[in-house]
């Protein structure tokens, strides 16, 4: 499994387009919003946590189809399916690799891009914390969506249509926890809910995703 992880990471880094693209997309989204709503500092400060969350979510979405598609096309997914490690493990490792190459850079970059959005001081910590807790769920849910659509010709658009509704709870709790933290309110409950979604997604979705992959490889 570690070999698979290092292989995926190496592929993502050397093939290019992995995390560079997601980060660039995130930067563009967070700089487009001020163009759209105007540069008033107060307005931006108020919507900053939500926009950063939506931006991170969309950036995550961008690279989802790469989780299985390339391996499916060159046949290595078939090899992985017949390999001694269970399919669930393969899916979990692939989601982890996706998180390390896409989610983690977003988490690190979000406070920096927050400066563009005039994010209030405590926001830097809260955006970092909520994204750190929430983005693994985004990768895992995305891996499930990618597993559903892996064999399809124009799976990309369908993938977004399937995955975005599944992202809603994560987005609500994540943005809510960040906003409440910034405004100085109690935010333990949304944080715990966010963590619960991530843990449940990591624990259960590999089974659903592996089932979908097996169906697609039949």
């Amino acid at each position, binding site marked *: 499994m570690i070999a698979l992880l290092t292989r995926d990471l190496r592929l993502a880094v050397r093939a290019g387009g992995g995390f560079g693209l997601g980060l660039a997309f995130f930067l563009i989204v967070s700089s487009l919003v001020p163009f759209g709503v105007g540069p008033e500092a107060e307005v931006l400060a108020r919507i900053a946590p939500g926009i950063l969350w939506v931006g991170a979510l969309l950036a995550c979405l961008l690279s989802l189809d790469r989780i299985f598609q390339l391996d499916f096309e060159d046949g290595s997914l078939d090899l992985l399916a017949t390999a001694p490690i269970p399919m669930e493990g393969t899916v979990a490792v692939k989601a982890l690799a996706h998180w390390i190459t896409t989610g983690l850079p977003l988490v690190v970059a979000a406070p920096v891009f927050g400066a563009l959005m005039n994010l209030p001081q405590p926001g830097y910590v809260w955006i970092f914390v909520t994204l750190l807790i929430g983005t693994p769920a985004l990768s895992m849910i995305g891996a499930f969506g990618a597993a559903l659509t892996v064999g399809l010709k124009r799976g990309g658009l*369908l993938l977004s249509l*399937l995955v975005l509704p599944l992202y809603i*709870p994560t987005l*609500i709790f994540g943005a809510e926890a960040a906003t409440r933290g910034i405004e100085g309110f109690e935010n333990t409950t949304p944080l715990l809910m966010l963590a619960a979604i991530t843990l449940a997604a990591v624990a259960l979705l590999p089974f659903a995703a592996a089932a979908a992959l097996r169906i697609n490889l039949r």
Partner: protein
Amino acid sequence: MPEMRRIKQRQDRYNSVWEWANPIKFMWFSGVALPWLVGLTVLLMGVGLVWGFFFTPEAVNFGSSVKIIYVHVPSAFMAISAWFMMLVASLIWLIRRHHVSALAAKAAAPVGTVMTIIALLTGAIWGEPMWGTYWAWDPRLTSFLILFLFYLGYMALWGAIENPDTAADLTSVLAVVGSVFAFLSRYAVNFWNQGLHQGATLSLDKEENIADTYWIPLVIAMVGFGAFFVTLVFVRTRTEIRKRRTHALEMRERMADA
């Protein structure tokens, strides 16, 4: 006693629910039931809606706009019930591999989608005079919008996959996972605030339901919408089964030609 055993066996066979999963049996039963269902639908929807629209007093503070509940509440109820039926049918397909079940889930999806749209639209039309706005990000409204998105994704996945069995499998998995997330979203949007929407108007365990004059036609309309849903699902499932059969016949002919 072999005679007794044979009778027992026959009874077992005929008493099983799964008997109805046989396409031939389903076609026979739905063919017989359909005219009755259509009649029931027309009767109940007609009585419920006409009674609701023309023979209920106008509520104080609401005017005649209150009458939209005879469409709004039943369609909202059916929108959720349809998704629940799809979930059950998907589980039956995943566990027992009955084709009729998968086709029934496929047939129910567009009906449920339209019910969701009707609920959203009538809600918007009603909301404008009542709350002064067509749309608000209120928990109930939001969860219906989310339900609508789930319906869209589900139907899009059906349409995108060519192999029917693969499509049935994948959409069933999606229906199961989607139900969990739809439920989560419902809970998550409650987090914002209480919202504009009134609480449940009808419930069995609560004393203060709306007055009987409104309640009786509303219940009739709801049962009517339920019958309407079953009728449409039967018709659509029959169409799907026939489509499968014609497809199988075409394939057989092509095999014979080759």
